[in-house]
């Protein structure tokens, strides 16, 4: 994100007048946070008539290609991606001015007269060479430590919203986009809860400032204006747009808590709902058609009965925001994230990646409500496929312990397999499977084991996607698999592509699978 900070200096110069003769190239990664940041930036550019080009990039190769293609006449280039800002090594530790090369050249010259001098030169040169070698080793060590664990830093949409606010160009719409970006980081477990709470605390005053409405008749606002409100949301996936029962069966926490894939689990869930006084028939119909009294009491009922069923309040409730515009459209931040990720990873053959990117940008443009509804339907389909896959993993005992980690492969041939060829869905499947397996397994050790998941990616090229995630009990969310994958691939000469921005996801030739995994096992012992 330091490339973004650079831009604040160049495009928006000290006197706050934008330089319109510059053209900005914005490269956006395929993540919702990056897309929200891109939309905020787009709005700011449009306000100030700055010329810009947006190019979506799926991986590092894409990034290079796009940069080379579009960099004519471009003054500033921005990369929208979350990155780890901590532990960046010092500049002088990594980059060295090339003065020492000149001395090396001098050493080759043979001068008998200054033979004495040459020996002294030799000594000085030797000392310099030793220092350089020591410095090189130190540099290698620092870089290894830096790349050993991959993590995520500040949300880019929050950063850009801050910038917009400082330029007094912030609106409710930009605030809503920043909220979505921040929530996406937490939902996809890129940041810990503390960091998420910090960001929420930062956004809360903005929300009150921009959505403060005096309650008198005189200044009532149009119903079409966006209203953002803070709420302690129930962490049930899209429950307002689905039925309560379906939502309970597709949310990670409740599914694992009740073990919905077993008959006993389902019975327990029915018991839970009956205990709360919610008739099963009502729970199975669309949430919006439930009786008003039940709808309003859902949250309180959950709170009341959480102790009896040992539900952790922190996991069931999430302080978040929801937006309302028009009479029908009421979405909480997590709904928008699921819908937009579903559209971003649409597996329809007729849509290319950039088409999906543009559709998702449309969805984030809140005036297009039909895009949002379509996205929600797609999210439901993808989530059902995910839960079914988890169920088949557990039923067929496909999660195997390989010593230092657990692993599983998505069986080819099932029709849903195409959903898991996309990185975000794959990551979600991995987390869900690990969580579910830890609930089912009697072995206490599994909660400390990381998990590696492989899924079929491209049948023409015979490749598969492999992702590694940290163990359930590891709260620091530091992922060591990036480096581990690299080293395993290097030692076995497996044909891998470390193209994704997330280093813990790689593409691997299916034939090299077994030797790659053997190397990985021995590496992580």
């Amino acid at each position: 994100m330091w490339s973004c900070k650079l831009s604040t200096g160049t495009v928006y110069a000290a006197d706050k007048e934008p330089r319109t003769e510059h053209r900005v190239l914005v490269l956006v990664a395929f993540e919702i946070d990056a897309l929200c940041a891109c939309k905020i930036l787009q709005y700011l550019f449009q306000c100030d008539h700055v010329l810009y080009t947006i190019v979506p990039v799926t991986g590092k190769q894409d990034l290079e290609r796009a940069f080379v293609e579009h960099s004519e006449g471009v003054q500033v280039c921005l990369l929208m991606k979350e990155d780890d800002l901590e532990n960046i090594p010092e500049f002088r530790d990594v980059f060295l001015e090339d003065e020492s090369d000149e001395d090396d050249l001098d050493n080759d010259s043979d001068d008998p007269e200054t033979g004495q001098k040459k020996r002294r030169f030799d000594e000085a040169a030797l000392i310099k060479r030793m220092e350089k070698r020591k410095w090189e080793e130190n540099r290698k060590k620092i870089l290894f430590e830096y790349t050993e664990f991959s993590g995520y830093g500040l949300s880019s949409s929050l950063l850009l919203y801050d910038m917009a606010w400082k330029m007094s160009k912030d609106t409710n719409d930009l605030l809503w986009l920043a909220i979505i970006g921040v929530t996406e980081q937490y939902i996809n477990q890129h940041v810990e809860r503390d960091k998420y709470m910090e960001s929420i605390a930062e956004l809360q005053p903005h929300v009150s400032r921009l959505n403060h409405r005096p309650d008198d008749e005189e200044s009532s606002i149009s119903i079409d204006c966006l209203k953002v409100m803070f709420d302690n949301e129930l962490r049930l996936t899209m429950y307002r747009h689905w039925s309560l029962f379906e939502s309970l069966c597709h949310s990670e926490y409740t599914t694992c808590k009740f073990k919905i894939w077993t008959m006993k689990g389902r019975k327990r869930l029915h018991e839970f709902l009956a205990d709360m006084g919610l008739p099963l028939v009502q729970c199975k119909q669309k949430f919006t058609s439930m009786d008003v009294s039940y709808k309003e009491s859902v949250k309180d009922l959950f709170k009341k009965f959480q102790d009896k069923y040992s539900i952790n309040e922190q996991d069931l409730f999430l302080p978040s925001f929801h937006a309302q515009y028009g009479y029908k459209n009421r979405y909480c931040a997590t709904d928008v994230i699921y819908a937009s990720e579903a559209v971003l990873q649409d597996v329809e053959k007729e849509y290319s990646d950039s088409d999906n990117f543009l559709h998702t940008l449309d969805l984030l443009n809140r005036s297009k409500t039909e895009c949002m509804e379509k996205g929600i339907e797609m999210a439901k389909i993808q989530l059902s496929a995910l839960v079914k896959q988890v169920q088949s993993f557990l039923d067929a005992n496909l999660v195997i312990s390989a010593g230092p980690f657990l692993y599983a492969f998505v069986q080819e041939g099932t029709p849903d397999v195409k959903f898991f060829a996309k990185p975000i869905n794959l990551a979600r499947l991995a987390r869900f499977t690990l969580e579910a397996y830890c609930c089912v397994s009697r072995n206490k050790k599994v909660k400390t084991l990381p998990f590696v998941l492989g899924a079929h990616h491209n049948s023409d090229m015979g490749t598969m996607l492999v992702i590694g995630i940290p163990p359930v009990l590891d709260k620091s969310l530091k992922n060591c698999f990036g480096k581990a994958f690299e080293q395993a691939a290097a030692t076995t000469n497996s044909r891998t592509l470390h193209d994704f921005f997330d280093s813990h996801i790689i593409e691997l030739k299916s034939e090299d699978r077994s030797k790659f995994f053997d190397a990985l096992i021995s590496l992580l012992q």
Partner: protein
Amino acid sequence: MDPSEVEFISEKESISIVPNFSLDKIYLIGGDVGPFNPGLQLDVPLWIAVNLKQRQKCRIIAPDWMDVEILEEKKQEEQESKFFTKMPCDYYMEITQLLLQHAPDNIPKADEIRMLVKDIWDLRIAKLRSSIDIFVKSDVTHAMLNYLTLMELNTVRPFLTKALDHIQQLRNNVSYGAALWSSQD
């Protein structure tokens, strides 16, 4: 004329804004605008106001007639009168549309205003339709309507002119046929 053309013409109307930036007077072909000072109200053409609002550079102040009580009175007047009454602004429909689309947060009680303006529009169009009906049936050669706005006029113009053309043609055919008959007798 296209409705978009009528909207374009209506954008020349003057409206009050409060800018948040400063700029000297600008000399445009259509007239001079400015100078802009942050926090000080001034009048600008509607197209400038909408553009500035979209770029977050100003706050639009609703015109005087865009008030719930005034519009309710007007609606009452329109309902009671047999003829068209004078509208508070010749371009009331277009201005309402543009302002409520781009600056609903600056207009107090935007929803009621939208409903009232739509009601007034419906009343007037209904009156127009019935008067056209009477005009055609009573076979007169001309009619006079006062206080009709450009937008209302242009909603009926294409249909009315074509319809009258057809009627004329049919009449001509009828009279030609009658002439033939009489000549044959």
